[in-house]
């Protein structure tokens, strides 16, 4: 074969280039392949009947009438699947004695949250399936709901499960906490509420399953095709090799599609029964009830410090609402925060305890940030409180406590090794962009003049652990899998490149960023790289996408695979160039002999020669294709400083974000356009928690926020413009990269709430429970103003109530009675 190979000029370095995205072409023209777009011959539609009770015994269920409805092919209740449906998996048994209740995909005898599936209809179209649900006869005996984790552990509380309402208690401690608190100048205690959130990816969940012979293909709007395949095999007993999972275009996840769902399992079972393809697509109202929720914790945080503000110790006691069952990583989510409450600060002692509690609500699980937003919120809120208590400027207080850039690598009090960071640089840049000193001066003027619209400045200096995760660390935390990632590089005969990644994207831009990395490593043009993912037959190995892991783990797997391609190509180049391998150098896609001959071969020429395989050296395999599996040896630790200015109208309670500056340090940047997009969206989601969103259940356990009219995902009109910038402290991996997907969400919530409290602090307000709606802000102001006109004793009482009256975690087990809320010793 003598085909001509195009000679390429060495491409410019791709790392850091704002490449426009390859995936956009189909997304902006409507040529998408969402799961709900898929239609197969003979495909049937599933509709689920769902429990209207938070807690009830199913006394009878009869689906026979539904079978006679027009267009209906089948109808089932839980009893029909009892022998084959197994139990939905929890992959993270965080303690040896954790209670993990059985979780049947379709309830058989008892329901434990509103929305739990109790029966289904399979029909020729989605309308007929929905119609026939009304023909199902089902009777319940209502049982008392369990809705408040602060009282769920009391004696006499109704039980969600036979084993009781406690799932686990998990502790972490380092240093002598008693000594740290005993003679501290100041001890503050605060109770914060992390409200329940609904992740709200724009694409609702959808599943299509076909069963041909004994082979199953499941298309799902999932973040985790590989994990899903493995666990479908475990749950159903179908041999893993007979299951193919495809995540086609997936419309966002934010953790909500990091799950093995009842509907996925049931679609498989129904397809197997009927030997016809089946589809289920949820409505938004159905999804708000039944896509796992996020957060929902009560946080009790205590900090002990010296008079100069130096932190001595920190103690955290959490109650975490598991909901009715433990889903994929439900119990582990709050524990990801355990390592982050200490954040960027040095201290002598730290203790963390989390109690996981069952309620008759939708299970909670991963939601963008997963544990780390909660931790960052609590520490950054109490740092502002400490600053106010001691009369120290809040940025100054942080600087007195944070790890200095020359102290890295730094072993944190919670047991992590921070590889790099420069908090001084990020903060200095943020201050400047924000015009911090000018805004402080304006704030003083407006306070002095009694402006009804007060200015508040909120600070969040955060770090986070991401890039999940070193497998040995996951093992030590009893997680059920490793944290590696896989990549394959296929060199095509024409010199083009196929990249297969185990990290399945759903909006993150892997097809573009991975092309940039591989283009740099192999010295091929960006345009010559095609990235494949999201189908277990094309990409047989992977750990998928969550926890800001794709670049730091999956990106490094790409580098490893490229190394192997280059090594193989070098052997062949050496023969072609008639120079020993050690005399052949590779740069920018070209192998050159160092023997002065000037002879060279491009990697594309090597690819073609390998394909032809006519003149390969003896024993050399005719393939450059290579795989690599990368297991990180540490997390990555993005950090940064976010500053938020809010205008708070003290007459109406309205909060307006006037400016928002984010300076993030995520190490080396592959594509600044994609990074800015991730930061923007992350900040928006954090602001949404601070100001707008809350999943609300009524006293009977009915979800009240089932629609986007009730659950306030903010629109463009509700959000500010963001100023984003970066500092660059490379991480310890070869690319020098850190994760970025969750940083904005982790940082922004406390920045916003700190700004609101800062605006209102002269009124004596020290907290407002999220979401800080105009009503809540207004009520806090009314209460505070009433208190200011009252006697000193009444003022003290009002301050003790902290504007979060009724929200303190009663029933929380505390280790001692030495709380000195707001006091100085």
């Amino acid at each position, binding site marked *: 074969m003598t085909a001509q190979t195009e000679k390429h000029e060495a491409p410019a370095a791709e790392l850091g280039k704002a490449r*426009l*995205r390859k*995936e*956009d*072409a*189909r*997304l*902006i*023209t*409507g*040529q*998408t392949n*969402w799961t*709900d*777009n898929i*239609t197969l011959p003979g495909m049937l539609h599933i509709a689920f009947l769902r429990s209207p009770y938070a807690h009830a015994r199913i006394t009878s269920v009869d689906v026979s009438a539904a079978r006679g409805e027009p267009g209906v092919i089948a109808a089932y209740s839980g009893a029909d699947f009892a022998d084959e449906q197994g139990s939905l998996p929890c992959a993270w048994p965080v303690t040896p004695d954790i209670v993990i209740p059985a979780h049947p995909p379709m309830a058989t005898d008892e329901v434990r949250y509103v929305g739990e599936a109790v029966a289904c209809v399979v029909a020729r*179209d*989605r*309308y007929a399936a929905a119609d026939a649900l009304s023909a199902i006869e089902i009777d319940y005996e209502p049982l008392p709901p369990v809705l408040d984790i602060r009282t769920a552990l009391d004696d006499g509380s109704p039980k969600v499960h036979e084993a009781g309402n406690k799932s686990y208690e998990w502790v972490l401690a380092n240093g002598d906490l008693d000594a740290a608190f005993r003679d501290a100048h100041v001890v503050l205690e605060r109770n914060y509420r992390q409200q329940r959130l609904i992740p*709200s*990816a*724009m*694409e*609702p969940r959808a599943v299509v399953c076909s069963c041909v012979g004994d082979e199953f293909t499941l298309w799902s709007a999932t973040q985790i095709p590989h994990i899903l395949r493995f666990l479908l095999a475990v749950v159903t007993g179908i041999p893993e090799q007979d299951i193919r999972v495809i995540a086609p*275009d*997936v*419309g*966002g996840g*934010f953790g909500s599609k990091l799950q093995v769902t009842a509907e996925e399992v049931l679609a498989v079972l129904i397809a197997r029964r009927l030997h016809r393809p089946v589809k289920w*697509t949820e*409505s*938004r*109202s159905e999804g708000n009830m039944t896509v796992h929720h996020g957060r929902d914790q009560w946080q009790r945080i205590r900090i002990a410090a010296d008079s100069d503000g130096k932190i001595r110790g920190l103690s955290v006691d959490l109650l975490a609402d598991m909901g009715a069952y433990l889903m994929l990583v439900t119990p582990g989510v709050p524990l990801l925060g355990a390592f982050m409450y200490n954040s960027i600060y040095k201290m002598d002692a730290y203790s963390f305890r989390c109690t996981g509690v069952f309620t008759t609500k939708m299970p909670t699980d991963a939601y963008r940030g997963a544990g780390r937003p909660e931790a960052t919120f609590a520490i950054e809120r109490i740092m502002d409180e400490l600053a106010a208590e001691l009369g120290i400027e809040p940025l100054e207080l942080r600087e007195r406590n944070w790890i200095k850039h020359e102290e890295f690598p730094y072993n944190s009090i919670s047991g992590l090794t921070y590889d790099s960071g420069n908090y001084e640089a990020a903060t200095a840049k943020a201050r400047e962009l924000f015009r911090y000193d000018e805004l402080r001066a304006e704030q003083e003027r407006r306070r002095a003049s009694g402006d009804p619209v007060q200015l508040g400045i909120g600070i969040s200096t955060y770090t986070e652990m991401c890039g999940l995760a070193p497998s040995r660390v996951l093992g030590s935390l009893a997680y059920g899998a490793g944290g590696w990632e896989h990549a394959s590089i296929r060199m095509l005969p024409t010199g083009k490149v196929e990249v297969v990644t185990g990290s399945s994207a*759903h*909006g*993150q*831009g892997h097809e573009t960023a991975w092309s940039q990395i591989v283009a740099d490593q192999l010295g091929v043009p960006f345009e010559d790289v095609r990235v494949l993912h999201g189908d277990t037959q094309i990409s047989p190995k992977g750990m998928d996408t969550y926890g800001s892991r794709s670049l730091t783990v999956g990106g490094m797997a790409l580098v490893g695979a490229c190394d192997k391609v280059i090594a193989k190509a070098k052997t062949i180049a050496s023969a072609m160039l008639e120079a020993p391998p050690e005399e052949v150098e590779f740069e920018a896609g070209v192998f050159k002999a160092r023997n002065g001959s000037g002879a060279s071969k491009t990697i594309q020429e090597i690819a073609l020669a390998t394909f032809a395989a006519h003149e390969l050296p003896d024993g050399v395999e005719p393939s450059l294709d290579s795989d690599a599996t990368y297991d990180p040896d540490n997390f990555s630790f993005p950090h940064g400083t976010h500053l938020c200015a809010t205008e708070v109208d003290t007459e109406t309670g309205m909060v307006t974000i006037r400016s928002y500056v984010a300076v993030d340090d995520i190490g080396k940047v592959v594509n600044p*356009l*994609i990074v*800015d*997009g*991730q930061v*923007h*969206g*992350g*900040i*928006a*989601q954090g602001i949404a928690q601070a100001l707008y969103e809350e999943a609300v259940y009524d006293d009977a356990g009915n979800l009240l926020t089932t*629609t*986007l*009219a009730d659950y306030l*995902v903010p*629109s*463009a*009109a509700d*959000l500010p*413009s*963001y100023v984003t910038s970066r500092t660059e402290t490379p991480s310890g991996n070869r690319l020098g990269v850190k994760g970025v997907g969750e940083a*904005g969400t982790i940082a922004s919530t406390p920045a916003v709430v700190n700004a609101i409290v800062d605006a209102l602090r002269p009124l004596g307000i020290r907290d407002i429970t999220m979401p800080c709606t105009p009503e809540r802000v207004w009520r806090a102001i009314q209460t505070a103003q009433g208190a200011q006109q009252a006697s000193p004793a009444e003022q003290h009482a009002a301050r003790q109530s902290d504007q979060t009256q009724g929200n303190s975690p009663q029933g929380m087990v505390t280790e001692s009675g030495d709380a000195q809320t707001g006091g100085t010793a």
Partner: protein
Amino acid sequence: MAEITVTVDGVSYVDNVEPRLLLVHYLREVVGKTGTPIGCDTSNCGACTVLMDGASVKSCAVLAVQADGTQITTIEGMANGELHPLQRAFHEEHALQCGYCTPGMIMAATDLLKENPHPSDQEIRDGLEGNLCRCTGYENIVRAVRRAAEAGVSE
């Protein structure tokens, strides 16, 4: 069943439909225009926005029979040999991540710029209030609409 005649992206279709069939289901499942996605069931998210006789509508809030005799433009009808300036602007400003809201955003923005060819940033934000995005924080969507406006998309 009711007979309707609807022109979708320049092609005329005659179909018998159930009177309760939503326009978005008609477009997706009868005509096969799956470029228009569904994001909610209460007409809050705007993902299914299309143009009906040139004005933006949420196609989950219109019955197919109400579209009888109208001209519908979906995202799939926007590129005319080359990308529509709004499509190009969304690409160039990185105004999409997962892309699920994008068809609705582009269709709503088309109507917005028709009514107000040179909107301020705040007018863009207010004009797109009925379209939700969970990925971008809207920053780059505003920039994209501004860029398309500056390019004179509506002229």
